[in-house]
């Protein structure tokens, strides 16, 4: 009799377990949703778990796709952030340049004002640190928010130091015209600053 009850309980538990598995058929999370809000994958069903009938190969492929989508979406989010940062920097540069020009146009202002003596940002010693130059794949993740063509002539690279050589090489190899332009600007600026030093 007791054995009968046990068997009955086990059967009920198995039934609940199977029904539970059948409930997790939610579609895999989209890439956007992964970036927008973090989810706990342990609590959420994954693509691989969603279809028990899938073969291991299919499950692996689904997991792979989920990972790729998620990483891709996150990269896109990062790229947006980097672009925003570059735009902020460009805007500030433009303001500084405008201030400098205005001060240069007004002799009284340039003689006495605090901001008047301030050189354009391009005159600063350090290369612009936000340009992702630190990335060894120089420019591969860089922003494409340029604001015009290279105004200065490109110096010849005979006396380049190692950093200048790297920037020059990256500029020569770059295929994206906007990015290429930015890299050349960076190169010209670096050369100018290294001569000042």
């Amino acid at each position: 009799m007791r054995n009968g009850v046990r068997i009955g309980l086990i059967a009920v538990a198995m039934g609940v377990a199977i029904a539970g598995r059948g409930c997790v058929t939610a579609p895999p999370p989209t890439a956007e949703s992964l970036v927008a809000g973090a989810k706990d994958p342990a609590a959420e069903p994954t693509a691989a778990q969603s279809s028990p009938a899938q073969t291991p190969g299919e499950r692996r492929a689904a997991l792979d796709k989920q990972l790729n989508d998620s990483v891709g979406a996150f990269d896109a989010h990062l790229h947006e952030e980097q672009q925003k940062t570059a735009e902020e920097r460009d805007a500030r540069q433009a303001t500084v340049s405008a201030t400098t020009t205005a001060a240069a146009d007004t002799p009284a202002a340039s003689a006495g004002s605090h901001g008047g003596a301030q050189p354009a940002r391009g005159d600063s010693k350090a290369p612009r640190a936000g340009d992702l130059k630190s990335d060894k794949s120089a420019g591969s993740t860089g922003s494409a928010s340029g604001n015009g063509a290279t105004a200065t002539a490109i110096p010849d690279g005979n006396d380049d130091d190692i950093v200048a050589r790297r920037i020059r090489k990256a500029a020569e190899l770059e295929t994206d015209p906007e990015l290429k332009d930015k890299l050349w600007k960076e190169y010209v600026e670096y050369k100018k600053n290294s001569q000042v030093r």
Partner: protein
Amino acid sequence: MGRSIRVVTAGAVFALLLTGCVVQETRPLPKINATQAGSEIPEDELLDVAVHVFDPGVPLEIAKNEQALNKRRIYPDIRAAESRYVAMMLRGTLENSGQWGAVRVCPENVQFVDVSVSGKIIESTGAKLALQVTVKDSSGRVWLNSKRYASSADTGSYKTDAALKARDPFQNVYSEVANDMLTARATMTARNRRDIRRVTQLEFAQDLAPQAMDGYLFRDQKGLVSVSRLPATDDPLSTRIDRIRESDSGVVDTVNGYYANFTDQMSNSYGQWRRASFEEIEKEQRTLNQARTRTYLGAAAIVASVFVPQQCGLYDYNCRRLETGVRTAGAISGAASVLSGLKKYADARTHALELKELSESFQNEVAPQVVDVEGRTLKLTGTAEEQYREWRELLHQMYLEN
């Protein structure tokens, strides 16, 4: 009478010595530059460097005591800004040397980098910068252990706005750190450097997929990590982890971009503050020295005029009149000197107050910028952390499937 003259002469010599002690060195300093790479370093030996945001160095015991902080010229909001600024300056120096791979400023929680630099600001005013720097590599080897670097400001940088933009007044400190890192790296073989890169890669992989990547690294008794074996070149899991590592580099790059913008934004006002701070500190020091000299000499003159024993004979009235005159004159000039010294102390306090006001004004300007950059950094690193958690789970499932 002769003895009185000797006392006065001794006082004059004492005064000269005292003045000699307080001469300040304000000439431009000799410039130290970071050693540039002479030749191209092979790609697989280029070590990436993470310069962590510095510890602002506000002592906990006086963190809430404004008076004590002012006395030590510590302004917490300025220090918070400087902790990022100094890291950024060091990064610029390292990157410009061409000796390293990617050099980026990142928060303390970024761990998996070939070489990590962390530090603390010991003192930072317009007149002096003192830092304590520690450098380690991913295998656990310590390159620099809390080494102290300090320098007075190079006054050449304060001469004009252009000079201030062209070279940081404390560039020598950053250059010295860069050169010491180079010396430490020079003690390693090319193989060591390649190993460091591999260890970093495997540590990152192990953090993401602990079960799958177990056993690739070995930690010895000293805590040094080395590579015990390598994953197969076509290992699919490693390929996926490498892909995630690229994203991780993107996070660090983005955060570095935030800090770069922040530094750029504050640099102009900060430079002006530093210059003003230097001038006020210099004036305060000079005035304090004058105050001390005058007070001590004045007090000495009064003491001498009172306590130097009588030298004249009992009936030598002329001599006694002269002596009394000298004593009176000594006491009067001593008192005048002491009063002048006290006035100088008041002047010094005025300079200290001016510095405090300047600093408060700059603090008000920079504090919201610090909050903004920190907020953005936390938001991004928080999102990234959540992503890594999810990717860890996915990689774990892939491992189980395999």
